[in-house]
């Protein structure tokens, strides 16, 4: 019986190793290839599926391999950023401003999702007794990704603070990502979820829950969409080429599928100043100036 348990544990460990092998793709490229890291906004598998065409497109255009890498969670991803393992990186606004400040990552393009280059967060609930922010006191709020999630934590907290609700008036739980934060509400693990306003429309959510049963209680102000940045030491030509490749995707019909697969309607040129409002909000919430 004991042996059986042990063998099961071994199987689990083996599966976990396989899983980590799959999801932790090589972060160092000594062969001239580029490593493109994408933050775990969605489950790792979904992320790989969504951005593989883009990586292949870039590889093709840059004539070098572009290796797509993601992690299981935000913490792991940030650890890779700290190690500067990603040549091209796609992450949230908060991570960008921090990496920009601490590691010199420079934004080149941002997402245009649902034909918008801005994004806001919403507080949603399934509980019919919660109809406004004042009903949130004493409830559990699920956030996606962790305390560094911009749209799924910083922005909702900012909204709540603006409404006079402090962190001590509710219980915070962190789902592994924003869709799961929303699903925590759906599965009654939380009363309220703080997520991006377009999370509801994400296929990950649609495939798992009936979002119609959830209602939006509050919506935050809009901030710039998620950025794509490159290392600060990347050659300028390459940086420009990559930027062009991103923004030119929409111009070629055959590449539009790459946009749709990546769950964006377009990529648009972005500059660091586009994230100043983000820096202000983060400062307001965390007290740290990036």
């Amino acid at each position, binding site marked *: 019986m004991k042996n059986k348990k042990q063998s*099961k544990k071994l199987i*689990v460990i083996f*599966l*976990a190793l396989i899983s980590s092998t799959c999801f932790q793709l090589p972060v160092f490229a000594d062969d001239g290839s580029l490593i493109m890291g994408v933050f775990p906004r969605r489950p790792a598998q979904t992320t790989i599926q969504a951005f593989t065409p883009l990586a292949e497109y870039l590889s093709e255009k840059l004539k070098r391999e572009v290796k797509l890498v993601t992690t299981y*969670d935000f913490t792991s991803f940030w650890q890779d950023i700290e190690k500067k393992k990603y040549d091209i990186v796609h992450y949230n606004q908060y991570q960008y401003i921090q990496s920009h400040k601490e590691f010199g990552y420079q934004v080149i393009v941002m997402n245009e999702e649902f034909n918008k280059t801005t994004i806001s967060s919403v507080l949603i609930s399934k509980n019919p007794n919660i109809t406004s922010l004042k009903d949130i006191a004493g409830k559990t709020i699920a956030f996606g990704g962790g305390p560094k999630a911009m749209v799924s934590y910083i922005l909702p907290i900012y909204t709540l603070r603006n409404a006079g609700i402090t962190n001590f008036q509710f219980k915070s739980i962190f789902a592994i990502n924003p*869709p799961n934060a929303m*699903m925590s509400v759906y*599965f009654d*693990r939380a009363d309220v979820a703080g997520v991006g306003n377009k999370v509801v429309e994400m296929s990950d959510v649609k495939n798992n*829950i009936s979002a119609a049963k959830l209602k939006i209680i509050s919506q935050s102000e809009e901030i710039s969409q998620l950025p794509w940045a490159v290392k600060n030491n990347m050659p300028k030509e390459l940086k420009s080429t990559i930027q062009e490749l991103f923004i030119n995707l929409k111009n070629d019909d055959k590449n539009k599928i790459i946009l749709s697969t990546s769950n964006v309607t377009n990529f648009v040129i972005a500059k660091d100043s586009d994230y100043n409002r983000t820096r202000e909000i983060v400062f307001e919430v965390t007290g740290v100036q990036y």
Partner: protein
Amino acid sequence: MSTSSTNKTNKSWFSSLAGKFILPIATILTITLGGSAMHTYTEDKNAAYNSMINKIDNLGQLFVQISPNAILSYDFESLNNFMESLTHTEDIVYAVIVSPEGNPMTSYIDINNEFISKDNHNHSHKHDFDRHDIINLMKEVGLHSQVTQKIYPINIEKQELGNIYVGLSNTRIEEKTRNLFLQQLFVSLSIIIILSFIIYSIFKYNTLKPITQLIDGSVRLSKGNLDKTVNVYSNDELGDLADCFNTMMGNLKTNIKEKDEILNQLKDLNRNLENRVEQRTTELIEVNKELEHLALHDTLTGLPNRSVIHGSLKHNIQFSKVKKEQFCVFMMDLDRFKEVNDTLGHDFGDELLVAVSERLSTSLRDTDVIARLGGDEFAIILPQTPINDAIFIANKIRKKMEPVFMIQSQALSISVSIGISNYPQHGHDTTALMKAADVAMYHSKNNHISHCIYHDGLDNRSPDQLNIMGELRDAINNKDLCLFYQPKVDTKSQKIIGVEALVRWNHHTRGLVFPDDFVPFAEQTGLIKPLTSLVLRLAIQQLSEWNKQDINVSMAVNLSMHDVQNDDFPDLLSSIIEQHQINQGQLMLEITESTIMSNPESVMAVLEEIASMGVQLSIDDFGTGYSSLSNLKKMPVNELKIDRSFVMDMVKDKDDRAIVESTIQLAHSMGLKVVAEGVETNEISKQLVELNCDIIQGYYISKPIPVDEITNMLTKESVLTSSTEKKSRTR
């Protein structure tokens, strides 16, 4: 062959040998293979079910291991993916992770699953289910008999995180194992059919075919065709059977041939036998005719005998009764024929009788019946004849007899006596008519007239007493007569030394009839002969019985005149004695003195013949017949019986006493014993003893008594004493 085929067609295949052989085999194969298929089906089903459970358990345990991380990190998408992947596993209807509070933490439901789609038509999309829907759905689906719910708890460090609810369907296993079962069943059935066919074919070739040939051979045999043998070439028992059959057929053929030869011989023998039987039958018919003629006709004259005349009489009575007509009967005998016979010899007498019968025949009509009854006695029936015509015919007969007869060159003149009776005037039955004619004939003879017509004056006994005579004839034939016995006591020893048998007629209406009332009639009608014969038989038979009981006495029997005049009597007596094996000296025949004196010479001859046989003779009623002492001296008698008339009065009448005394002395002087009859008193008895009488007999000793009483008496020591005592007591 056709019969065999017919038999085959008439028989049901199931009752045939093939059916009886194949059906059990097919049944055994079916049971075996069917059972095997069923067993395999059950085993497969259980194994598949266990395999499914094991697989699901393994998967469940796997997800139990990987789920806590996702639960703790609120990774519902992964949980959902887990459950989705689990749900997509074979045989799983649903897989839901439920929180410890009972709320589902995953939403994936395969709405295409047959059980889900059956019960949740209103859910068009898989995410239309809220937590209540999912819980209810699990409950509802769990109600299906094909669905089993398994629960895998998710724990970490004793903290309950939730449970994985898995709904398992055994539909696929059922279907799969059922299909396997059906396949196996099909294979088994195929094997059964093929094996049965092969076995049947082998059986048919090796067994049924020889049997069919044997059957055909048997059919041929039953039709008598023994030429064709049965050809079965096999070394098994059927081959042996066929050889035996052929051998049997050969033997049968030989036997039939021999039998046919024997049959032909038997037919020849039978034919010969039939011819001989036919010949013997013809001879027998002839002999029978002769015997019948002899039985119905007199051998001497060729005339019908007594049987014919009786039959004819009955016929005429019936006929005349219906027609209301008269007819007459003649009884006729020849006058002085006995003298002719005695003087001229029996042959002469016979020739005379033949001549008389010839004249009689020419004297009568064809319709008249003449019969010789015996001796010189003839009977004639005259149908449809009144008395006047009968008288005319009687005269005609008389005249016919008047011319002398020339017998053996000797002229003889003879007359006849005819008695005539008429129906219905003198009787309505044969006995009465014959008796009436007989009485009339005796009257005619006694009065020396040629014929006499019967009338009541001739016989005061008629017609009632005539009827008695008829009854007596029947009584003799039916042995309705019995004997009473009167003891004879020796005066010296005072013991019974003998008994006298006295006949009694036990008449059904008249009671006990004494011999004086019917013996004379018997003597007159010829019945005395059978009567004497019967009495003799009864007496000697009883004597024989007493001998067997060691009762040693003599038996006295009275004879009539007719008996001693009958030449056949000694032969009759001899045959009866021989039959009963008695000592002849024990038998004493008593003849009255008058009988002897009526024809001493003739009686003497018979008596001598009787005496020569050793039979004792006694002269009865001595003193009433005027015996000639010279004749008496010649008689071979042993005893004298003094008539009762002298004895009864001897006490009162001195003359009678003197007669008794002298008779005793006379008898003693002749060496004869003396018996005194009629001893009715003690005084008579005493005087007889004084007179030296040897034997006394009478009512003083005992009246005639039935056989059981006399037998009882014979066993006593002293009769005189006991008799005296008995009478004293009576007084």
